[in-house]
């Protein structure tokens, strides 16, 4: 089988891309998509280790991560919709009432 380092490196790359996306984008929806990207890169690490160790627990954890990601996407998008209804924008620079 391929050395596991390759999978871990790809996962690290996708995670960093997700972090840069969260920190540099202003559209709240794209920030959310970057978070999904980071969740997926963590999933890749879990599945890689699960497969190389011959232990199904990693893949079961990925299953639960997907459940939580689905719940998070539904709630997050509902929050974005209600923000848009009140503020008429999804630009995170203009949504700053909680900013100190």
């Amino acid at each position, binding site marked *: *089988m*391929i050395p*596991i*380092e*390759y*999978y*871990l*490196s*790809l996962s*690290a*790359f*996708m995670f*960093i*891309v*997700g*972090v*840069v*996306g969260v920190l*540099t*984008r*202003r*559209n709240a*929806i*794209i920030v959310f*998509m*970057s978070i*999904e*990207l980071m969740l*997926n890169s963590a*999933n*890749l690490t879990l*599945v890689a280790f*699960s*497969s*190389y160790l*011959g*232990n*199904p*627990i990693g*893949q*079961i954890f990925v*299953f*639960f991560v*997907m*459940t*939580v*990601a*689905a*719940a*998070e*996407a*539904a*709630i997050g*998008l*509902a929050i974005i*919709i*209600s923000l*848009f*209804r009140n503020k008429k924008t999804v*630009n995170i620079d203009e949504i700053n009432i909680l900013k100190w």
Partner: protein
Amino acid sequence: MSLNFILFLIFAFIAATSAVLMITRKSAIIAALFLILNFAALSGLYLTLNAQFIAVVQVIVYAGAIMVLFLFVIMLLRPSDEQSIFDDNPKLKWLATFVGVLVFAQILAIIFIGRPSDGLTPDLQRSIEVGTIEAIGRELYTTYLIPFQSAAFLLLAATIGALILAKKKLED
């Protein structure tokens, strides 16, 4: 080079490029489409790891359900193309790239100095058995039954929460 390695290279290339393209596109819809491409490539990577069940769930749940939700909201709200954070200060773009490369190099150093593959003795037959629906389903419905039920409650709570958050406020 084995077929597995060639497939890994192809899918890894698609996943990495589409991730970078996703965070650099101005239009939210194009970004969402690149994210779907990324998820499809990840599903292929799961198949090279013999994780059939997770590969199928990845396509159904992520590329199917979650991204349709995202596209639906993007088309519902029609946000205008964003003003980039870099427009006021173009130097910031290089700083962001530099910091990203730095952290990536740090993680790579940890991975290649730690050499996790030294402690692993991968067994192809075992790895194929572990990824089947049968193996995962058996664990899920015996050892992890209570977390599985809690996940169901979490989804119910998320459904109700999303309904309440997104519904129009009724004037009293």
